[in-house]
Structure formats: structure tokens, C-alpha cells
């Protein structure tokens, strides 16, 4: 019996003697591996990106939106609105809540001098910055006094500030929203986009001002708002807060059957996104895995041709003393080297692809160590598996027949 190192040396020599063929044989495995690594990496990147986006909403945040969970997205019926009073009730009566930020959202044309833009205007209370983790870059944010007195002041997102006041400091300037003039009192720090939505081109006014001067929305139950953001005391009290808010609102709205509102937990959203991207990653990896399998079949194919072509060599090796086991080992090693080397090259190519994706898109795709290990091991295994048939065929060759075939 020839030892393993010796068989490997012989296999390497043979593969090196047919460089082009070896390279082409590996191609299938290379592509398979590269796609596995890239797909898994991009999938992970997408998941992390989504997670990061939800983190940026602020920690431990719950959202209360009008409409029952069942009716979400499938009814035109207008659900009972949430009110400013609802939000104040939550702030004062729910013990697991840290702060509550009611928000009233509307689209309006904003005019400053001769510049104008269509923009989202959000009516807020001072708690907004705490709950949603916004920071003021210049000037100040809206205060309780602003909300109480309904002052006509506005805080701008940095992008909106830049487009309305390109050459001067916006603080102290005046702008008009639906012919009502507002004084700019502050500019927020850049926050970036949330799932592709720019959060930096929004104007913030006191909730009461926006309601009374611009939207004029009233409901029989009080000052109507769009939704409420709530920050729980800590991560552990999220579930409790959700439950308590639900109970409180059911009492306040005198609900006996279906809720007219939905309390959304950002963790739920995260989990949903995780599930979706996870399923997507598995699917992509499965497709890539199939190409890996096809690559393995390619190796088997070429190895079978190679056995046929090298019949005389095999016959000679047997005549001069190679046992069946020796021939089997040699061909198995050849197949495994092809597959494992293809796996390694494919991994490098996949890592390159991931770097390209990271450079060109906001997805911070990373090379997953698990994916690399799995891909290389699977390739090696595929080489072993698909090497068996050709190697057995080689080992079983009758040396007399093999030597006479010319």
C-alpha cells in the first residue's frame, strides 16, 4: 500500500499535467461555492441592515396605530382615531411606560423665500426626541410651553433645512406652511433613511399648532393624531407595556369585541423581517447548493472520461504493483483535490463578490465563517462522493485489457 502523502503527490502531478482540464473541471464547484458564500453573506447583510434600521427607531419602542390588527391593510373603513388625550392617558396611567410621543403626520408645501418643497410635517411633543432617539444639531427642540400655547415654531430635518435655506443659517428664519408662517427654532442631526424613507427631510411643529392651524382635524373624542410612539421602561417591560396599553385603550374606547387599534412591537417587526430574509437566504443557499451539486456531477463526468483516457496508465500501474486500493485512493484524491481546490477558489471569489456588494449597496454584507466552512467541507465531500464511481471503475480495470487498449 502506498501511503497517503505519496498518493497525493501523484494526484497533484496528474492534475498539474492537465492544467486547463483541471481548471475547467473545478469551474462548476468554483461557481457553486462563490454563489453559496455570496448569497449567504448578502442574506446576512440584509438581515443586519433591517435590524440596524429598527434599532435606529429607538430602543424599546412600541407603536400604536389606528385600526384593528385584523383589518390592517384590508379595509377602507376609517377606524376610530387615536387622540392626544389617549396618549396623555397612556403617559400618566401605564406604569411600565417611560415616555409617550404622539405624532400627527401630514403632507404640505413648505415655502421659504422663493424656495418651496412638498414635505412631511409632523406634529410632536417634546418627548419625541427621547422616544425616537433624535438629537438637536442647532437651536432647540419643541418644548412643553410650545405645545401648551400652540406657538408657530418649526424644527427642520437637516436635508430639509439645506434645501430651504441653502446659503444661510435657518435658525430664526421664517417659512410658511399653508400660508401660516412659522419661525425656525432648530435643526436636527442627520438620522439617515429608514427602509429607504428619508427621515431627514421632515419638519416638526408642536402637535397642537399643527392640528389647530393646518390640518384642522377634530374627532368627537378629542384632538386626533396619526399614531403614538411609546418607549417602555426597559426591554423586559415591553410585553407588559403592550398589554397594559391595550387594556387602557380598550377601556377608554369602550371596546368589547375587536380592537380598533394595533400595538406594534418593533421586536415583532424585526422577527418578521428576520424570518423573511432567513427564508430568502435559505432559498438562495439551496439554489447555490444545487449548482454545487451540478459542479460535483461535472467532476464525476470529467473523472470518468479521464479514467477511460488513462486506461493504459492504470493498466501499467497495476502491472508494476499497484493494488486496487492504490488506484482507488489515487483517483479519489484527485477528485477531492479538484473539489476542495474549487471550493477554496470559489470562496475567494464569493468573498470578492461580497466586498463588491458591500461597496455598492448599503448592505453591510460580511463573509460568514460558517458559510465558508460548510461550503469547503461540502465541496470536499462532493469530490469524495462523486469521485467514488470513477475511482472504482479505475480500480476494477483488468490490467490485461487495459494494457492492450491502444
Amino acid at each position, binding site marked *: *500500500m*502506498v*501511503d497517503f502523502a*505519496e498518493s497525493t503527490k*501523484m494526484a497533484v*502531478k*496528474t492534475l498539474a*499535467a492537465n492544467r486547463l482540464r483541471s481548471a475547467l473541471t473545478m469551474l462548476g464547484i468554483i461557481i457553486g461555492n462563490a454563489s453559496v458564500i455570496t448569497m449567504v453573506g448578502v442574506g446576512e447583510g440584509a438581515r443586519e441592515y433591517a435590524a440596524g434600521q429598527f434599532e435606529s427607531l429607538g430602543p424599546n419602542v412600541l407603536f400604536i396605530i389606528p385600526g384593528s390588527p385584523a383589518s390592517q391593510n384590508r379595509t377602507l373603513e376609517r377606524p376610530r382615531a387615536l387622540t392626544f388625550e389617549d396618549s396623555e392617558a397612556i403617559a400618566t396611567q401605564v406604569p411600565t411606560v417611560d415616555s409617550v410621543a404622539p405624532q400627527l403626520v401630514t403632507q404640505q408645501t413648505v415655502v421659504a423665500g422663493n424656495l418651496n418643497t412638498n414635505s412631511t410635517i409632523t406634529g410632536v411633543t417634546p418627548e419625541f426626541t427621547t422616544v425616537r432617539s433624535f438629537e438637536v444639531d442647532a437651536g432647540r427642540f419643541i418644548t412643553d410651553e410650545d405645545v401648551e400655547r400652540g406657538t408657530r415654531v418649526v424644527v427642520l430635518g437637516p436635508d430639509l433645512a439645506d434645501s430651504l435655506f441653502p446659503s444661510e443659517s435657518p435658525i430664526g428664519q421664517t417659512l410658511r406652511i399653508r400660508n401660516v408662517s412659522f419661525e425656525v427654532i432648530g435643526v436636527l442631526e442627520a438620522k439617515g433613511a429608514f427602509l429607504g424613507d428619508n427621515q431627514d427631510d421632515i419638519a416638526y411643529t408642536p402637535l397642537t399648532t399643527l392640528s389647530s392651524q393646518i390640518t384642522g382635524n377634530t374627532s368627537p373624542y378629542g384632538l386626533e393624531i396619526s399614531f403614538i410612539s411609546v418607549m417602555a421602561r426597559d426591554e423586559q417591560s415591553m410585553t407588559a407595556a403592550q398589554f397594559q396599553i391595550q387594556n387602557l385603550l380598550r377601556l377608554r374606547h369602550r371596546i368589547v369585541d375587536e380592537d380598533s387599534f394595533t400595538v406594534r412591537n418593533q421586536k415583532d417587526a424585526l422577527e418578521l423581517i428576520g424570518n423573511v430574509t432567513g427564508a430568502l437566504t435559505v432559498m438562495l443557499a439551496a439554489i447555490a447548493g444545487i449548482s454545487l451539486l451540478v459542479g460535483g456531477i461535472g467532476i464525476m463526468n470529467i473523472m470518468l472520461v479521464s479514467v477511460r483516457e488513462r486506461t*493504459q*496508465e492504470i*493498466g*501499467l*500501474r*497495476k*502491472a*508494476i*504493483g*499497484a*493494488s*486496487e*486500493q*492504490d488506484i482507488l485512493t489515487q483517483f479519489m484524491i484527485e477528485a477531492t483535490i479538484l473539489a476542495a481546490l474549487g471550493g477554496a477558489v470559489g470562496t475567494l471569489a464569493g468573498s470578492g463578490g461580497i466586498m463588491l456588494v458591500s461597496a455598492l449597496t448599503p448592505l453591510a454584507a460580511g463573509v460568514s465563517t460558517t458559510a465558508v466552512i460548510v461550503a469547503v467541507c461540502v465541496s470536499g465531500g462532493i469530490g469524495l462522493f462523486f469521485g467514488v464511481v470513477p475511482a472504482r471503475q479505475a480500480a476494477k480495470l483488468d*490490467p*490485461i485489457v487495459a*494494457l492492450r487498449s*491502444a
Partner: protein
Amino acid sequence: MKDIIRFQDISKIYGSGNTEVRALSHVNLTVQEGEYCSIMGPSGSGKSTAMNIIGCLDRPTSGRYELDGTDVAQLSDADLAIIRNRKIGFVFQQFHLLAQLSALENVMLPMVYASLPQRERQERAAEALTKVGLGNRMNNRPNQLSGGQQQRVAIARAIVNQPVLLLADEPTGALDSHTTQEVMSIFAELNATGITVVMVTHEPEVARLTQRVVWFRDGEVMHDHMAPEDLGQLTVVT
């Protein structure tokens, strides 16, 4: 003198029933240590089958075959591989050198399967190549060598494991008359050093250079120890 080859009542039958072919029929043959012997016969005479059995590439259907005192008829395939490696040196008509290996590496190949250490392999391969007069072409690939030189590399490969028997199958079949002489003189030299040589050939002028001719016909040994003058007559018959 000890017997290297001893065939006792060897038969080889291919197929069965109506398609049965009796390639060898109750052959008795003994070759002693140091002999230089050629096997001749028309095609289908059984000489190739005899050759394959002598070389442990095939097993007889019945009978007893002792190679260098070992009964090899009942050995496993793996054991036969070892016997071929240690006791027999093969030389083929088509040389069968591996194209991707140098002359030296080709000669080292049998020692790879004998699991000898790398250094010893190199030394012995170089020695064997020098013996066949190719000490200066060791690093050439087969395609950089002439036919005669390639056959000499093959002979060096055959003797490198110091076999008890050098078995050549039409060793000059692919060579011109000049290189045939060259190769035959190497066989003669090797035989002079005590190696037993058995070769299958269909060329009378080659057989004439050996000391003993065994003539096969219809699966049987028809003549043994033929006189050179009879050889001429018999070839006419075929």
C-alpha cells in the same frame, strides 16, 4: 538451479458451454533461474495467455503455478499486486511510460508501490538507468527520447525492484532492426548478470538471440528447446 517458473498441468478456459475457448490445455513448463527464454507461436496459440499467467496478471482455470517457489494460483488480487511488484519486471511492446513523468520518475514508479524511501528510490532508479546506458537522459520526458531509448527506460523500470523474472511482451515489436539489436543486447547483458528473462516474440531473428525457444500451438507446448535451424522452418508454417 532453482525453478523460477513451474507450470503443472495449467489450463485456462474462457467462457463456458458452447462458447468455451480453451486457451491453454494442460501445459507443463519449467523455467530455471538464469535462463534466457523466448515464447513463440501463431496468434491464438495461447502464448499471450501463458504470458499473462506467468506475469500474475491472470489466474489459471486449473493447475498449479509456482513462481519462485510460491504457489500463486490461490493468492488474492492484493497479494498478486505485491508479487508483480517484487518478483516480476514487465517490459511491453508499447513501452507504457507515463508521459507526464521524467525518465527517472518513470523508473522510480515501481518503488513507490514498494513504499521505499524517496532517497533510495532516486539512487536505485539512477543506477538502473545508468545500467541501460541512459545515465545522461534521466530528466528527459518520454517524448524527448527515441523509441529505443524509451524501451531502455522501460527495461530500467522493470529491473529496478530487482525482480527474479524479467518478462517481456514483444519488446522489439515497435522498434527498427538497429534498435532491436540494441535492446536485445541489453537483455543479454542483464541475463549475463543472472536475471531470468522470458520474452514473447513473433520475430525468429529475435528468438534466435535467446538460449531457449518454447513454441506454443493450440494451447499446448508443441516444441521446447528448439534448434535455431528448426525455427526458420516453423515460422514458414505460421
